[in-house]
């Protein structure tokens, strides 16, 4: 691995690094602060658009809930992923890593969910969602949607999938860098953490929503 001073890279290359591996430049308390701010803002916009992040990468429109529930969902998603990664890091890493780096990188990795919360704000998404729900429950006709609504909803879905993939990639990069783990062992432990955290966060979110 060869590192050059960050300023010596071309602006385009640096931008790509910031987008796909921001942890090369920022980690620890800075990443934790900005990551938590992004999580809480996503919770605020989620509340405004009634968009729940009820699982590590889940995005669902639906049940109305108080603001604190939306904020708590983001925090639960973040911490339920960070904890198993710290655990596996302690087991497989040969380096002495800092807890704050894992927490910070995992928090900042969730920032694309801020974009999702904004994309899901337009009322068209809620109308299409209500229409789809009424269609499934055989209660058609109660909700009217336009082609424009469908177009906005389709766009939001595409962006959401891209952001979710980006978030997972950032989570892995954050884990790999902050715990200094690479290769198959890093990938396998990340997948185990991911699946376990999905179950854990789902259960925790269902508990607070109930």
């Amino acid at each position, binding site marked *: *691995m*060869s*590192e*050059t*001073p*960050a*300023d010596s890279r071309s602006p385009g290359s640096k931008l790509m690094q910031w987008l796909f591996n921001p*942890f*090369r*430049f*920022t*980690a*620890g308390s800075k*990443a934790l602060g900005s990551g938590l701010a992004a999580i809480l803002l996503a919770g605020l916009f989620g509340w405004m658009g009634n968009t729940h992040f009820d699982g590590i990468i889940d995005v669902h429109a639906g049940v109305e809930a108080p603001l604190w529930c939306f904020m708590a969902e983001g925090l639960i998603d973040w911490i339920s992923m960070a904890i198993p990664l710290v655990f596996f890091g302690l087991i497989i890493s*040969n*380096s002495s*890593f*800092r807890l704050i*780096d894992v927490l910070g*990188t995992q928090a900042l990795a969730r920032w694309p969910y801020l974009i999702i919360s904004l994309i899901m704000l337009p009322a068209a998404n809620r109308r299409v969602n209500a229409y789809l729900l009424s269609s499934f429950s055989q209660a058609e006709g109660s909700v009217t949607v336009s082609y424009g609504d469908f177009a906005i909803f389709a766009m939001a879905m595409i962006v959401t999938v891209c952001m979710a993939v980006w978030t997972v990639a950032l989570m892995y990069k954050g884990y790999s*860098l*902050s715990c*200094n783990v690479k290769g198959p062992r890093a990938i396998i432990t990340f997948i185990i953490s991911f699946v376990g955290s999905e179950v854990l966060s789902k259960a925790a979110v269902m508990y607070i929503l109930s």
Partner: protein
Amino acid sequence: MKTLLCEGCQTQIDGVFDLPALAQLSVEDQRFLLQFVKASGSLKEMAKLLGLSYPTVRNRLDDIIERIKLAENSEQNDGKEKQ
């Protein structure tokens, strides 16, 4: 390395000499270690100097330590073979 030369008396010694582990590192790694010593061994200071995050710099140092260990091991193995 095959030859050692004294610039003062021009004495030249031929043989097979091993480079010290640090000299076997790449120029970039050596530059990194020089900066690290100048920064009093502070990874935080190094991170500031290079504009990189703390774990990026720590991982770089860990990689260099691994390379030094490898170089030292191969030196020891060579020494045993010669004996």
